[in-house]
């Protein structure tokens, strides 16, 4: 029990807890195995977990355990004599005794011994080995640990000397600075020690990132440089999200020219906003004469326009369109679907509900219904009037030939495009403003123009 108390104390001291109670769920599931991390000694849980079968196994292991106690006694003698070579040898012997059932010496005990005896090189080896093999080592659940011996009390005494308000690194940094070691080894040891608190104390995180960068820059050929760079430094540096975001953006901007085609391909079918201006229109009309050509002349629509908003493949369009019949235009609201989109070509069929309109000019004085020309009830020669139709439907397809595609300002995933636009379709239009404008027509039509598209 005493050992467990020491262990808990060490865990509290060396491993810093994370704040959020909100983590309880996933921490419970994932962090429990990690209690082995900082101490090297797993949480053995309550004794109730041991069943009779396990108890019998433990009895069989008593010989292993007595060997472990003897080894620890020998280690204690070496510590008392301050013989670092003997200490290393005894520790190696105890490590060799380690089995799935008995752990004669745990990492925290080794660390305390190394700290007390200023054995920094051995400490470095221990730390590097521990972290390098972290993901490969599997502690068994029911391991026994020697306890209540002299070595355990010795470790407890060393731990008692530490300032519990400081991390282990802060406690021993002075001794590491003045240790007789290569600068590379010193740096690596500091990095290893800082790992324990890097993600809980900001100052340690900053120091770890700085030290990690320096180490990798100064000693790129060091056997551990690649490992530290990838496993330790990279995740730490990615914690500075602002820097990461800036670098990512700069990288993407710098390389956007060479990735242009790739970026365009990635953003096809994503949607955008477009405007088409149709300068040339034509068509055929089949059906009634829509107006009294002996009384009126119609005005041709000079420019037709279309605005559309594309969301993914769907497009919502509002347009003023020449219907294909002389003098008849229509205000339309349409819903389209992009069936094909590529670097140069986009095909967007759509159906539109239209409100046909006709602007006519009287050739002579004409009496007209009041609702159309309420002020006078007649049109004089040269007067203009607008007649609205009842209903119109348009089925058409837009074909865009995109001759220019450029990045929109400094964006990487947004573009500006110019196209030659063709619209081909059929419209049905009816007027019911008898006696002068009346009838229905079906008209195949086309329009050609230019379009701009922001996407």
């Amino acid at each position, binding site marked *: 029990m005493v050992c467990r108390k020491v262990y808990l104390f060490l865990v509290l001291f060396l491993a810093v807890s994370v704040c*959020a109670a*909100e983590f309880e769920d*996933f921490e419970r599931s*994932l962090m429990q195995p990690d209690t082995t*991390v900082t101490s090297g000694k797993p949480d053995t849980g309550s004794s109730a977990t041991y069943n009779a079968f396990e108890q019998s196994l433990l009895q069989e292991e008593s010989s292993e355990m007595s060997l472990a106690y003897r080894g620890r006694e020998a280690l204690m003698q070496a510590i008392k004599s301050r013989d670092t070579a003997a200490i290393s040898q005894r520790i190696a012997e105890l490590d060799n005794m380690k089995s799935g059932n008995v752990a004669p010496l745990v990492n925290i005990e080794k660390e305390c011994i190394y700290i007390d005896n200023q054995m920094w090189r051995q400490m470095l080896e221990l730390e590097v080995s521990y972290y390098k093999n972290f*993901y490969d080592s599997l502690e068994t659940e029911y391991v026994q640990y020697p306890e209540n011996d002299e070595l355990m009390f010795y470790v407890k005494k060393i731990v008692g000397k530490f300032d519990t308000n400081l991390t282990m690194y802060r406690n021993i940094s002075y001794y590491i600075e003045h240790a007789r070691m290569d600068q590379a080894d010193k740096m690596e040891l500091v990095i290893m020690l800082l790992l324990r608190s890097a*993600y809980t104390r900001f100052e340690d995180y900053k120091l770890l990132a700085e030290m990690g960068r320096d180490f990798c820059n100064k000693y790129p050929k060091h056997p551990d440089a690649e490992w530290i760079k990838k496993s330790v430094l990279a*995740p730490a540096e990615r914690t500075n999200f602002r820097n*990461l975001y800036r670098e*990512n953006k700069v990288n993407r901007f710098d390389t956007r020219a060479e990735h242009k085609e790739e970026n365009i391909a990635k953003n096809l079918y994503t949607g955008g906003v477009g405007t088409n201006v149709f300068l040339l229109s034509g068509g055929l009309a089949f059906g009634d004469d829509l107006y009294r050509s002996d009384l009126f002349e119609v005005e041709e629509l000079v420019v037709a326009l279309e605005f559309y908003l594309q969301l993914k493949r769907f497009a919502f369009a509002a347009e003023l369109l020449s219907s294909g019949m002389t003098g008849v235009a229509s205000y339309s609201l349409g819903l389209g679907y992009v069936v094909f989109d590529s670097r140069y070509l986009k095909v967007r069929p759509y159906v539109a509900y239209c409100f046909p309109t006709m602007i006519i000019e009287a050739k002579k004085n004409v009496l007209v219904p009041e609702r159309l020309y309420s002020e006078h009830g007649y049109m004089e020669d040269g007067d203009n009037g607008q007649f609205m139709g009842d209903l119109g439907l348009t089925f058409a397809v837009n074909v865009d030939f995109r001759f220019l595609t450029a990045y929109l300002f400094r964006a990487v995933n947004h573009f500006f495009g110019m196209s030659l636009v063709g619209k081909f379709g059929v419209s049905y239009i009816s007027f019911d403003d008898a006696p002068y404008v009346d009838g229905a027509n079906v008209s195949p039509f086309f329009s050609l123009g230019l379009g701009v598209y922001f996407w």
Partner: protein
Amino acid sequence: MRFVALFSIVVVLLLCASCSRVPNVYIGGPKDPQPLPDSIPVLVVNAAKVPLLPQEYNYLGTIKTAAASGCSSDGTIAYLRTLARKVGANIVYVKKTDIELAFFYTQYGSMTSRCLTLIADFVYAEAPLISKWEEEVKKMESSRKAGE
């Protein structure tokens, strides 16, 4: 009336908490993500306890979440798991956590939500310890299902 309105807002926020998308900035994601099969669980690993990544891993982006009214810690973690699965990551490596406030203003007053926000890496890695964790998570999930 005011009570009814406030009650409705609270109900809507609680409902939204379970389904809403967590506001976030996600960068460095793969160009062609390969979703993780359902048979592999997504692990959430706290860097404060496991301060390094395996020697071999595939980096699949970093995410920073933000506070939003109606947030919940479970919802945030569930969202991260879903996103990780989508990009093919089996580990959400949480490196920084914080509690931030989100404000929701109405004509009757304002409401605040305390939200867990975090910065995490998405990675895919294979190692004996990861397999062990995955087994433990699978066991927990199956026992949870059995309990239901």
